[in-house]
């Protein structure tokens, strides 16, 4: 008898684990079966980046609307793209160049902006951008710049140029970003070329620059999220990364500085889109609308340090910060988080490149890794 109980217990445990495992791995697929329109429970499958939301907002949205949110994350635009084939997401938050690629491949649904009244709060600067010129598919979520993060105690002079990313003077102390678009983009900018070039020669030169620096031991590593630990604990002197993440690192290491290099840089917008084959388009639009509300934008800005495109939130944030923390927000930091238009004017957004250039990027990037 005892044995039987143990057996039953073990079986149910295993089954439970298996089932919950499946459910956790693929919330999207379970969602697609259960609800369709009004019948059954309402839900929305969101795929975003890691550490990219004030997580309390998810619960509040669920409470306010009764819509269940299945929130998952991807590591990079390319990883997200690869995942799209298998999963059944409703809302994704890709960056500009990936959005144009998805629009080009007809994978995004046109939004019904009547269901997203908060879209009116988005600053005009972030509407009708080149990735979605008529603004039919997207609602911006965050924006910012790519730049150089450096440890002021480990370099002799302030870093002002992308040259530092290739300088043997800092051999073994530089962290290059581990994705093809940004890394080759940095080399292109250092050479004075456009980040949107299709010219094979220019891309080859950018590759040569990176490859030579790698060969000369300039790079301690090619990193994405590992950059936090390495910069915060002063294991490396210089890294190329995003402004929002710099502000997170600064909380743990006050010696860190951030610069948008004089050659200019990349400025990016990550925007929320709904996939064409989404089964929960209305819920998706409700989610998008909720995320654009000034309150949600303010709290997101506070949690992730990336600037929101919501005009009110941008204006109110310094005040919000002072109320929350009892001390004023350093205007210099705010200028890094949400830079002036003059800074953006010196920066270039990534545009989607034709297939041929994308393949060249892949080949060069693989070659560099070897």
């Amino acid at each position, binding site marked *: 008898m005892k044995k039987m109980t143990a057996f039953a217990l073990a079986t149910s445990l295993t089954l439970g684990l298996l089932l919950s495992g499946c459910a956790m791995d693929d919330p999207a697929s379970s969602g697609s079966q259960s609800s369709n329109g009004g019948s059954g429970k309402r839900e929305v499958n969101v795929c975003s980046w890691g550490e990219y939301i004030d997580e309390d907002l998810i619960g509040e949205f669920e409470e306010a609307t009764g819509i269940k949110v299945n929130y998952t994350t991807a590591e*990079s635009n390319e990883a997200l793209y690869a995942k799209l084939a298998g999963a059944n997401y409703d809302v994704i938050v890709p960056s500009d160049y990936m959005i144009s690629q998805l629009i080009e491949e007809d994978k995004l649904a046109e939004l019904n902006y009547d269901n997203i009244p908060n879209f009116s709060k988005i600053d005009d600067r972030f509407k009708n951008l080149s990735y979605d010129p008529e603004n039919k598919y997207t609602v911006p979520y965050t924006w910012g710049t790519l730049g150089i993060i450096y440890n002021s105690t480990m370099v002799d002079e302030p870093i002002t140029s992308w040259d530092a990313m290739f300088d043997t003077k800092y051999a073994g102390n530089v962290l290059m970003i581990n994705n093809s678009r940004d890394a080759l983009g940095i080399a292109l900018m250092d050479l004075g070329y456009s980040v949107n070039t299709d010219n094979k020669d220019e891309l080859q030169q950018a590759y040569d620059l990176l490859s030579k620096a790698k060969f000369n031991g300039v790079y*301690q590593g*090619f990193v994405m999220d590992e950059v936090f630990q390495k910069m915060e*604990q*002063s*294991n*490396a002197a210089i890294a190329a990364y995003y402004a929002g993440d710099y502000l997170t690192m600064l909380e743990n290491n006050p010696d860190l500085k951030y610069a948008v290099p004089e050659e200019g840089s990349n400025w990016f917008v990550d925007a929320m889109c709904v996939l064409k084959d989404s089964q929960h388009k209305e819920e998706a639009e409700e989610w998008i609308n909720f995320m654009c509300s000034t309150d949600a934008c303010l709290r997101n800005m506070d949690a992730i340090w990336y600037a929101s495109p919501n005009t009110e939130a941008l204006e109110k944030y310094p005040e919000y910060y002072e109320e929350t923390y009892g001390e004023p927000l350093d205007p210099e930091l705010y200028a890094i988080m949400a830079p002036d238009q003059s800074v953006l004017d010196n920066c270039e957004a990534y545009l989607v490149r034709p297939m041929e250039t994308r393949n060249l990027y892949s080949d060069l990037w693989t070659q560099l890794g070897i």
Partner: protein
Amino acid sequence: MKKNKLSLFSIPYVIWMALFVVAPIIMVVIYAFTAAPPDGGFTLDNFARMGSYAVVFARSFKLALIATLVCLLIGYPVAYFMAKEGPSFQRVAMMIIMLPMWMNFLLRTYSWMAILEKNGFLNQFFSAIGLFNLINSIFGTDITYFKMIGTSGAVVLGMVYNYLPFMILPIYSVIIKLDHSLLEAARDLGANSAAVFRRVIFPLSLPGILSGVTMVFVPSVSTFAISRMMGGGTQMMLGDLIELQFLGGAYNPYLGSAIALVMMIIVVICMYVMNRFGEGEEEAMLL
């Protein structure tokens, strides 16, 4: 009658195999021989490009081989002495060996990163005990830290740390089951303990060594997260290269499948050669 029953019991596993082992391999093969869109169709191009990745193949097999050897050198003595101790010692030792495996291997590898960093625990410890001052005064150098993270040595360390239990356990389970009468017979015939080990115990534990080597070597060749974290993205291995084609900056699952297929074939050949070699040894010893 008995045969029928067996095949009935094997049905769940056959279904499992078909769904999750055979079908994916067939998909990998199909992908490997397909051209990337928009061309599509049958192609051998994916394999023609393999030559440019020879460096990665060489590095992967070299590091995996080193890791396997180190595991064997550490693992065999541990397994041997563990098997000779009393049952309570064995239980504790087994627990200690298995303990790290209760934690996710990514977490364990992250901890190693913190230990090996430029300002990591090890370098701070060396600096605190004045090791760098000592070295600098003796050799007239000017070092303030050892470069550990981002080297191939760190990658090997990561693999050894993660896969060592897979070497110890099979060897241990073979040695513990050795027939003691054989050892006694060897001693009765005048063999000293070195000879007993060399002529009896070691040959009889070869099956354990072989499965240990397989269980360490195969995952080491195809590892990807360890090499990226410990190697700082500068020690690309086959697993990283394949991942790059599926999830990374270079999206080309067709090329990725071709690389995976070539890797599988090389691994199978390695295993086949090793097992043949092992069998020969075993028989020779028994004779």
